[in-house]
């Protein structure tokens, strides 16, 4: 599945359509959007950047892991890069499965692994003009070679 990264707004309708199938009775669409929150202050936009070659490889590994764990799941995702205004989606994950339980599970797996492993960074822009790299919530040293590394 190619084209994980884009610099333009994500077409979620097209993304959903790309996973639709006659045998799938459940489709889940997850969107991560740029937000304003108390702890982040007066954010007006977030600039996303990536180590593109590795981000693509890591997305490939995550999607392959999900496909191995939930056979029959149909998965498409896009991560947007560049300056993204408040309220617009930075990531969209579309999953279609025969039933809803696994569709939710697959969607959740992909976003959680993305946040742990995919080399993408964000820099907040504030009303004041200040710019600030976003540090993720404290985590245990998150990353070891994914299971594909052992294959």
């Amino acid at each position, binding site marked *: 599945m190619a084209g994980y990264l884009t610099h333009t707004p994500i077409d979620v309708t097209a993304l959903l359509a790309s996973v639709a199938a006659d045998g799938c009775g459940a489709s889940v669409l997850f969107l991560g959007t740029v937000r304003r929150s108390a702890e982040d202050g007066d954010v007006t936009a977030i600039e996303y950047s990536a*180590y593109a*070659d590795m981000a693509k490889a890591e997305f490939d590994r995550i999607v392959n892991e999900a496909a191995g764990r939930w056979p029959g799941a149909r998965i498409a995702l896009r991560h947007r890069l560049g300056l993204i205004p408040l309220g617009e989606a930075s*990531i969209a994950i579309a999953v279609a499965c025969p039933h809803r339980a696994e569709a939710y599970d697959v969607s959740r797996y992909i976003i959680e692994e993305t946040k742990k492993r995919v*080399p993408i960074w964000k820099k907040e822009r504030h009303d004041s003009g200040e710019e600030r790299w976003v540090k993720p919530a404290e985590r245990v*040293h998150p*990353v070891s070679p994914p299971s594909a590394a052992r294959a």
Partner: protein
Amino acid sequence: MSFGPVSKDAVNEGSRSEVRVRLLLFASYAEALGRTEMPVDLPTGSSVADVLARLRQDPAAGRLPPSPLVAVNQRYAKPDTLLRDGDEVALIPPVAGG
């Protein structure tokens, strides 16, 4: 086959006991060090830890954390991962995608 050029090449080949890796820096780390990419020459048998040690010779590297995440050829690696000539080594700041 003539001996002259062949033996000369062999000498050059034998004396090249180094690996050259391409070190990539991103996001806050690129800002801290003021660059996004640099070649690093190391003795054969060097590891990820050796690249980090070399990088720390740059005073600006004091702004890096004690043990940053590192990827080799687009895959997360460990400090003892051995490097080969031409490897792409990347320091990965804490990721914040999604």
